[in-house]
């Protein structure tokens, strides 16, 4: 009976205690602030959801302990645990944030490396393309050269020049000169015209104009006659506007017969002027000069 009275009394005292304003714990306020900050972090669900649940649960326990007037040390203890669980969550988030940044930096690094590599590849491609272009241009140039050479060859063939070991050689025969004279017959004009036109078109080509005679008569006379005939051709070319630097004039005398001097036909063949052509760049064949 006394026991029951005591219990009633205790109960009443407890009710009175509960009715008083719950004690305020700065530890709990601090823990609540930390838990709220954790809950609001955008990474919380991804990186610290367990810690948030634990911290909220512990904070709730602390609040319940206050409401139920539990021992202050229990309240402070629970608030401490809640705050530390929030700290733990924050540390996990901080780590997750760093790891995310690491992932991004690695991706960026790969991107930069890839860009550098494709830049190198582009450079290599550009080099290859430019080499190809150069090759094509060279091919084109050499094709143009070949065409030019072919045109020159055709032009020379029209002049009835012959391919010899001295290069292309055009022979102006005795019939184009008056007998024993260095003046060209009118019939030679067509050939000289063609030669002048060829030289005008092929402006790098040079010529040797060589006079030759048969063995009839004194050698000194023949030498002089060969020079005069060669000069006659040179004068005709100059008259047609061909610069004197384009040709050399030589009297070869009777020393380079192309036929036997014993027959009239052979002698006629030997009386001639030969035009030796250089290539298109002005160079003569190594054996162009028979005199060495």
């Amino acid at each position, binding site marked *: 009976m006394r026991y029951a009275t*005591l*219990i009633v009394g*205790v*109960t009443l*005292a*407890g*009710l*009175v*205690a*509960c009715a*008083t304003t719950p*004690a*305020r*714990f700065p530890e709990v306020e601090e823990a609540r602030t930390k838990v709220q900050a954790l809950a609001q972090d955008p990474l919380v669900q991804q990186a610290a959801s367990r810690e948030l649940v634990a911290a909220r649960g512990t904070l709730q326990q602390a609040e319940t302990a206050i409401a*139920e*007037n*539990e*021992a*202050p*040390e*229990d309240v*402070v*203890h629970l608030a*401490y*645990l809640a705050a*530390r*669980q929030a*700290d*733990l969550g924050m*540390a*996990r988030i*901080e*780590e997750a944030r*760093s*790891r995310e*940044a*690491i992932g991004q*930096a*690695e991706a*960026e*690094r790969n991107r*930069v*490396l890839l*860009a*550098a590599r494709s*830049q190198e590849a*582009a*450079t*290599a*491609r*550009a*080099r290859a*393309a*430019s080499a190809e272009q150069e090759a094509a241009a060279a091919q084109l140039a050499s094709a143009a050269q070949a065409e030019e050479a072919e045109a020159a060859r055709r032009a020379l063939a029209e002049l009835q020049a012959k391919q010899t070991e001295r290069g292309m050689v055009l022979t102006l025969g005795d019939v184009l000169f008056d007998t024993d004279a260095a003046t060209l017959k009118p019939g030679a004009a067509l050939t000289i015209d063609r030669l002048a036109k060829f030289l005008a078109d092929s402006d790098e080509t040079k010529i040797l104009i060589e006079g030759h005679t048969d063995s009839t008569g004194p050698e000194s006379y023949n030498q002089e006659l060969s020079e005069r005939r060669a000069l006659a051709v040179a004068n005709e070319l100059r008259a047609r506007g061909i610069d004197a630097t384009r040709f050399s004039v030589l009297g070869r005398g009777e020393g380079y017969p192309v036929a036997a001097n014993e027959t009239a036909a052979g002698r006629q063949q030997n009386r001639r002027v030969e035009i030796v052509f250089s290539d298109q760049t002005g160079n003569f064949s190594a054996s162009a000069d028979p005199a060495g």
Partner: protein
Amino acid sequence: MQASTRGSFSLPTLAALVLAGGCASSAPKPVEQITQARTLIEQAERTDTHRLAAADLEQARGKLGRAEAAAEDGDQEAALRLAREAAVDAEVAQAKASAAQAGKAQKELEQSLQALREEADRMPVNPGLDRS
């Protein structure tokens, strides 16, 4: 600290006190919690935590020591609280150390990325095309 506002006892506490006849503490020694705290502290000590989160680890050690002392003194409730706090302190220490390590790695990677970017910028845009 807040003693002036905490003058009352809750009903269960009072009832327990009454029913237990004023017995100091009937709770068993929190062996499990003390062991857990010690394990967490030892784990932290094996890593770089003692360097990267020294304050938190030191706090955990101090509380573990006090938990053991309280258990010796027979105050098992205090021992339980201190052991739990020591355990969470050790966990916080470990987590902070991990975060610090990740932060260091991040910083290093970002520096190397910056260097790489600068190097890439120095590369000629297209050496193959600047020959006209």
